[in-house]
């Protein structure tokens, strides 16, 4: 199985939100109706203990965890791994909107769609990837902050940028207020 991973370089992200707009377009997300985009960008300031300010620019969505806890948490079996890409995909035909997947996810990736009472999430644009294209968010990123590559290409200096590597890292340093 070829496995793909998203990579993200926070030093290249300006939170311009092009990725969000592309995600919204690709997935026909109706923001006016209150739906939420699967990808979310953040431009936020966090005051530090030393009086300085940490400026965070982020673009986040489903991390497509290797051992995704949402899969076992779904009581109806809606969520699974795509065998061709390794992305965490779903078929919400039987979704009961119980939010068990949201409770299982440490990143807040699954979102509740009030319109039909079902959960939705980033599926990695797995159909695009299967057909040789990049996910919509990656294609829209002008600064090269987001990418999606086969796992075996994530090596060397870039390896610490892979989302499912990032989520396994611990050891955090600077204390904020």
């Amino acid at each position, binding site marked *: 199985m070829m496995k793909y991973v998203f990579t993200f370089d926070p030093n290249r992200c300006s939170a311009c939100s092009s990725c969000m707009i592309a995600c919204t377009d690709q997935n026909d997300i109706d923001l006016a109706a209150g739906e*939420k985009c699967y990808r*979310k960008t*953040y431009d*936020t300031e*966090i005051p*530090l203990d030393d009086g300085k300010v*940490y400026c*965070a620019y*982020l673009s*986040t969505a489903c991390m497509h965890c290797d051992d995704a*806890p949402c899969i*076992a*948490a*779904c*009581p*109806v*079996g809606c969520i699974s791994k795509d065998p061709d890409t390794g992305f965490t995909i779903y078929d919400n035909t*039987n979704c*009961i*909107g*119980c*939010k*068990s997947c*949201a*409770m*299982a*996810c*440490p*990143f*807040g990736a*699954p*979102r*509740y769609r009030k319109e039909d*009472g079902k959960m939705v999430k980033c599926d990695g644009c797995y159909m695009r990837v299967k057909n040789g294209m990049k996910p919509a968010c990656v294609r829209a990123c002008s600064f090269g902050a987001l990418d999606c590559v086969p796992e075996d290409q994530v090596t060397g200096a870039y390896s610490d940028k892979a989302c499912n590597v990032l989520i396994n*890292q611990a*050891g*955090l*340093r*600077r*204390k*904020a*207020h």
Partner: protein
Amino acid sequence: MKKLAIIGFGGAGYCAAAAARECDPDAHIDVYTDTDIGPYNPMLTTYYVKGAIDYDALFPFGSLEEIQKKLKLQVYRDTPVTGLIPAEKAVCLADGTKRAYDSILVSTGASAFVPKIPGWDLPGVFKMRTAADAVHLKKMLEEGKIRSGLVVGASWVGIKVLEDLVERGIDCTLIDGADWSFSIAVFRETADRIQRDLEKKGIKLAFGQMLSHIEQEPDGRLTAVMKNGNRFTADTVAICIGIRPNVGFLKDSGIAMNRGVLVDEHMRTSAEGIYAAGDCCEAYDIQSGEQKNIGVWLNARKQGAVAGANMVGVKREFGGNALLNLAHYLDYDFISIGDVTSCREEDEVYEYEDERYYFRAVRGGGRIKCINMIGTADSNGIVKSIFIKSFENSAAELDVSAVCYLRANGFPESFIEFIGGKIVDRA
């Protein structure tokens, strides 16, 4: 070739069979089930009743036939195991048959507890746990004769049964013996808000009411009579006061039990070669360090998978239970994370309320003990994650993405600080 027996075939039993088969393609796996249907999820029953899913969706792993073929199982249908002999690693059946195995899994689940009070078996009195219970209630409601209902037990099941009735326009009263709803999981202050919001939806509440018995009125309606003499009359009565692990058949086995079968992190019982998983067992709770019966679908699946692998010699460990109760009903949701009964008067309390959220959390001994949140469903996983991390490291803090997420969702800074504070860069 290893010879395995799985007693009981729900979420835990299925995941054990799947893991054992994945780890050992040659193992011989016998499954004993007291039904003739596949593993179903009891949590889905009320969703079937309301029409959110079809009957087939109760069975998330497929039909018994499909599973039997896929996992190469020998399934004994309608064949309850009546006893277990640990010294011989043997299961006993009602007809006197005894079969020995290399390892045995007890995954018999739990049953709805209905006390055998006078009137418990009157027509119109029902419980909610099995696929048959769901079919029965759905049929009863579709007949259209039910105009009023009593739900005895402000439990996680009770609130979903209540939703099924209310959404059909049925006048409902929620009754419980405790002084407030969900009393073993939420703070009184949280319960006050939950109850106020239920009343706003037109639901009548009666707490501190212990059920004595049920009578049938001359017109066929049912009256639930309380121990204090209060009487509540309606067309139907749901008894949703809790579940009990299905472990009666083990009482003479010598296997260590409390409410459920006691297991270690490998899902081993006190008897060599005998494992237990799911709602019938008590695994370690990460908060108290003690064994607790926490009947949750995700636990059952994880525990079953761990047991199945260990049964064929592949070492795996279950990371531990945590008390988590998520309820959502009638466009409303709340969650309780951690053990509310562990909180003490001297502990530090956090409370916050705005038009969207309610938070109440308690810290003691340098750790978060319990968090109650109303209206936060999308963010529950992030908060649960920091709670779990705090048991690995009492100084655990939220990383930048978690802080950004919670801020964007309108969480107050004071709550973020209370549950751990912020960390902004990596070592």
